[in-house]
């Protein structure tokens, strides 16, 4: 009875093997086995990209980090944008008719000229005129029960439970509609920045500038107190600093002169939000289904988010109501030769659909890029040598392996700075006395950032001589004379001997505090954990050891670290800053005293305060780019170099790789709405993918053979044993 059972099992097993084998053979004729996408997609005009962490907010009032902006920038259209090809970065109108020019008024309401002293300016006014005829993407929030009438009979603004039961994702709404973009939508969004429940990250900054924004927030707060859950129609509350002029024009009034404000107008914070959309998403039943503005943005841009499953995949698709924008006709010299003007004047966007897949791990990401399943990729430190050679002239070129695959390389210096900071409030390392200054200087010499760049960034970066990275006004090709010497026209880090001499001068000869006789212990505070961090931390320790100082790593979780920074209790730390906009003000304010982190919770993480520096900063801030501004900046940097609150760190270079089928790519660090410019040659892609991903089958066959080879003797032994046990079954069963 049991024997047939076993035989039956074996039969099932063998059938299964046959089925699998047959499946394998038939599959060979199909597409590549390792294609992570549907094979039917291969001839569609799709760009494949990835995201590393699920974006937290796609609400333009909240989204800030780069992984969020890569979506919002394609969907929302703020009034301005950066020119795709021209460098240095240049603002150009997007939804606006033209780049607005600020008009300055003094306290009595008289118009001042552009160069007016900031102290005189009582308000500055920006009047922004938008292009008529721009349409929103189709969305259920706009859908009316009676499409012809203009009254507020919206289909989905008061959803019943029955209606809700049928909704799971936004696409489940049967009707959608569009509407024209009007100036009031921009005003509505600026009001949202002040909404207490939205927590816009720039609210704290904007109340300093936009007239009446703080009061507006208080008014809304009061309204919320009476009914916490109710939707507030922001149209009913006026905001003094922002008003609608006519259907296509609105006006923003700032309390001071703030020439950098125009850069903010190129960010999604100042994109339009129609009140209908706000009303629609305010329904509690939708929030329960994760249908909120944070997950389903509504914009006028070239793309709209159609699939949002942040656990797996996000898909942008061409917005059918997009007005169409022309590819730029001119660029930098060299762009033409680089093939960046082939599509000049053609209507964008070129790509129908962009698929972003969740890719948390570096390994799969890189391998999929090499297999052709991602169209472009960054270059991780671990894959650098596979991809890039640094040639004789110091230029980066691709390895033969990459060029054989038709991959090309784009490089640019990021508008960022990664620096080491000293907490100037610290009793040992901080302060403005000579002793601490010498100690900081000795450390600055010992900490070999050239080596850091070479180990951890594969040489992708330039050591910082000051806070301002190349490409930003005020950057100069000089050296920091406290850390470097000019040797043969090239900067050379001062020797360790010099650093030791500085230590002796500071009273820390050989790492021993001469006043107490105790060895000097310094602390490096970090939130970094994990294997990648370990190497960096080891490196930091090694640097301090060079001058006989023991560095203690105090690593902790991100929260504690932030808390420590806010309390001003850290000692030495690493910090980074990515520019919000391409202006030196956005870097120098990192050293501005009233902006310090401790107590004031600003961005001056080193808590550096120098009266003269602060004074110069205030004048620099309002100067137009020119020789005068340059000289002020130079003075400021000299002061900061002497005080040495920072180890000037480095400015990273960004390398990115792309396959030959991806066209019109130019690195643009501050511009984010770049998808519309790109084009994909999917025929070339398909051919390459097929060529690179032939499955290797022989090991499979080998395994099958091995299994058979293993099972057969076992089966024979089974037969023998069966016979044996039938003959003398009583002798075997005894315990061993």
């Amino acid at each position, binding site marked *: 009875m049991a024997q047939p059972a076993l035989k039956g099992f074996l039969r099932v097993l063998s059938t299964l093997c046959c089925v699998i084998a047959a499946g394998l053979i038939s599959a060979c004729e199909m597409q590549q086995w390792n294609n992570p996408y549907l094979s039917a997609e291969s001839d569609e005009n799709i760009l494949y990209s990835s995201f590393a962490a699920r974006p937290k907010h796609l609400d333009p009032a909240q989204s800030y980090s780069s992984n969020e902006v890569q979506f919002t920038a394609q969907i929302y259209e703020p009034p301005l944008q950066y020119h795709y090809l021209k460098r240095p970065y240049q603002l150009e109108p997007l939804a606006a008719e033209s780049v607005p020019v600020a008009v300055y008024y003094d306290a009595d309401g008289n118009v001042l000229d552009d160069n007016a002293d900031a102290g005189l300016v009582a308000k500055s006014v920006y009047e922004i005129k938008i292009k008529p005829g721009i349409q929103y993407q189709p969305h259920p929030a706009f859908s009316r029960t009676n499409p012809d009438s203009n009254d507020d009979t919206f289909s989905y603004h008061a959803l019943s439970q029955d209606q809700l039961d049928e909704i799971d994702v936004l696409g489940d709404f049967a009707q959608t509609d569009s509407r024209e973009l009007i100036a009031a939508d921009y005003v509505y969004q600026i009001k949202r920045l002040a909404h207490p429940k939205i927590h816009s990250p720039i609210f704290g900054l904007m109340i300093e500038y936009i007239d009446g924004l703080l009061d507006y927030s208080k008014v809304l707060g009061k309204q919320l107190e009476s009914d916490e859950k109710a939707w507030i129609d922001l149209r009913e509350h006026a905001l003094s600093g922002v008003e609608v002029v006519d259907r296509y024009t609105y006006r923003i009034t700032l309390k001071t002169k703030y020439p950098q404000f125009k850069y903010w107008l190129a960010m999604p914070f100042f994109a339009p939000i129609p009140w209908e959309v706000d009303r629609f998403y305010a329904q509690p039943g939708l929030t329960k289904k994760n249908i909120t503005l944070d997950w389903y943005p509504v914009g006028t841009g070239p793309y709209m988010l159609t699939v949002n499953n942040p656990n797996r995949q996000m898909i942008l698709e061409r917005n059918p109501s997009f007005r169409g924008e022309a590819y730029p006709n001119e660029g930098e010299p060299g762009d033409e030769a680089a093939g960046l003007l082939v599509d000049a004047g053609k209507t964008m966007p070129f790509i129908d659909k962009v698929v972003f897949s969740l890719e948390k*791990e*570096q*390994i799969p990401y*890189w*391998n999929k890029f090499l297999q052709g399943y991602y169209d472009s990729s960054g270059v*991780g430190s*671990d*894959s*650098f*040598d*596979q991809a890039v*050679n*640094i*040639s*004789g*002239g*110091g230029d980066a070129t691709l390895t033969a*392996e990459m060029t054989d695959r038709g991959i090309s390389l784009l490089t640019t210096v990021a508008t960022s700075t990664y620096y080491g900071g000293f907490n100037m409030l610290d009793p040992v390392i901080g302060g403005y006395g000579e002793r601490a200054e010498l100690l900081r200087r000795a450390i600055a010499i010992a900490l070999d950032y050239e*080596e850091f760049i*070479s*180990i951890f960034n594969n*040489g992708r970066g330039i050591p910082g001589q000051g806070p301002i990275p190349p490409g930003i006004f005020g950057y100069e090709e000089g050296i920091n004379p406290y850390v470097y010497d000019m040797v*043969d026209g090239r900067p050379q880090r001062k020797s360790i001997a010099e650093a030791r001499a500085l230590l002796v001068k500071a009273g820390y000869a*050989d790492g*021993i505090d001469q006043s107490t*006789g*105790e*060895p000097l*212990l310094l602390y490096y505070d970090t939130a*970094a*954990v*994990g*294997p*990648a*961090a*370990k*190497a960096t*931390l*080891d*490196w930091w*320790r*090694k640097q301090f050891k060079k001058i006989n100082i*023991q560095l*203690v*790593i*105090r*690593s*902790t*979780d991100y929260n*504690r670290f932030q808390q420590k920074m806010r309390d001003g209790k850290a000692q030495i730390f690493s910090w980074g800053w990515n520019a919000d906009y391409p202006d030196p003000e956005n870097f120098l304010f990192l050293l501005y005293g009233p902006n310090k982190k401790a107590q004031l919770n600003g961005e001056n993480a080193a808590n550096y305060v120098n009266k003269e520096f602060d004074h110069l900063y205030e004048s620099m801030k309002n100067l137009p780019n020119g020789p005068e501004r340059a000289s002020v900046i130079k003075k400021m940097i000299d002061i900061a170099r002497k005080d040495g609150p920072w180890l000037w760190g480095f400015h990273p270079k960004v390398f990115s790789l792309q396959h030959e089928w991806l066209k019109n790519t130019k690195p643009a660090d501050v511009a984010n709405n770049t998808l519309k410019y790109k084009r994909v040659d999917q025929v070339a892609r398909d051919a390459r993918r097929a060529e690179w991903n032939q499955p290797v089958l022989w090991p499979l066959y080998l395994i099958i053979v091995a299994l058979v080879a293993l099972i057969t003797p076992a089966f024979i032994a089974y037969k023998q044993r069966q016979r044996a046990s039938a003959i003398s079954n009583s002798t075997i069963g005894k*315990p*061993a």
Partner: protein
Amino acid sequence: MNAFGYQFAPLWTDWLVYFLVFSGIGFFLYARRHEHLARPWRQVVRRPLAMSAALVLLVYIAIGLADSIHLQKQRVIANSDAVIFSSEKISLLDIVLTTLRVQEEKTYSAPFAIQSYAKETIELPDGGIVREFPRLVYGGIHLDQASDKTADIVAKTIRAIAESVAIFVLLIVILNFFLARYYQNSFGRQLNLLKLGDADLPWRSLLLMGFVLTLVGLVLIRLAPYYHVLGTDKVGKDVLYLSLKSIRTGLVIGSLTTLFVLPFALSLGIMAGYFRGRVDDVIQYLYTTLSSIPGVLLIAASVLMIDVYIQNNAEQFATIADRADARLLFLCLILGITGWVGLCRLLRGEALKLREIDYIQASQAFGVSHTRILSRHILPNVMHIILITLVLDFSGLVLAEAVLSYIGVGVDPSMISWGNMINGARLEMAREPVVWWSLVAAFIFMFLLVLCANLFADSVRDAFDPRAY
């Protein structure tokens, strides 16, 4: 204590390791005098596989112990009589492995490589820049030409083989001499018996395993000072050194955890089974609650909490070693707290059975105190369960460390451990050409330990709990 310019400066886990060693010795002496414990042990000792595994484990333990004696080096300061000790704590193992420890390259290099693994930008004297593989700072520095490498390695290996064969022969002679005297056999006859493996103890297997270990050890001793036998990692540390340092971490996690498991499991388990009623209810409630929380999450939450403690009491942890050590200790504690449930359940069941046995019932009737019954009658009779569970859990804990490090709640990132090595190696596997040696080194060292622990544990279980066979 201050000798040879060093000061004895043990870490917290060191003290516990010493405690564990002494308890182990104490248990050994105790077991020798108690037949019901000594008999199964004699059975274990007779198994060739178990004894070979035990020999390997002994080597691991010796390395781990050498790494558990921490010292501070005296610093000589010019024109000062003050005795100042470096705040850096190094272990006896570090001192033995000084060559490996200090010979740090700049970045990756392959096993036995004499050139760096990655190309580097090198400035030529004339100002030009080339990108090439630079020679290593230490690896193979004694060679004039790269082509001498193979010959050099072969020569050194042959020498090591010759030496280990010599030691092996010497060992056989000495052992045989004593065995012959013990069994009152002639030397030749005893040698024959040894060859046949006919003895109370598996001398033949032990000798062979000993030979293999000596051989590996000597090859390493001959080669490691000249080459990075297992390559170097991202910041140029010798991978062999890292692998050896990881041994202590693995052993500490595997053994100290049991130290924390014991008090909970033993007291609560026996009490629940013996007293029953309310006590049993409370204890059962406690362990059902604890065991129903997914273990990883409980560990993650607790480790995060410990970070907070370490953070708030930073002044107690002067050096990195202290901090990492505290975290290791806490990790063991947490693993202990989450891990006592299984053993507790077993002990409760056993105690339930035992309390119904005649002589314990009789003791109760005679009014012998509970403490006395528990310590004299119940405890000795559950010893074998404790022992089996502890040896079986050991390997699981060593393996768990790797997974916890991946999730980010393992040992301190600055601590050298197999988990951290594997975790780092994940990134290296994406490199091309692939950096495989960290992963392989961690794999070999970890696999050997766990395999031997498993084999040994199997034998212990078979001996103490023969039901399964």
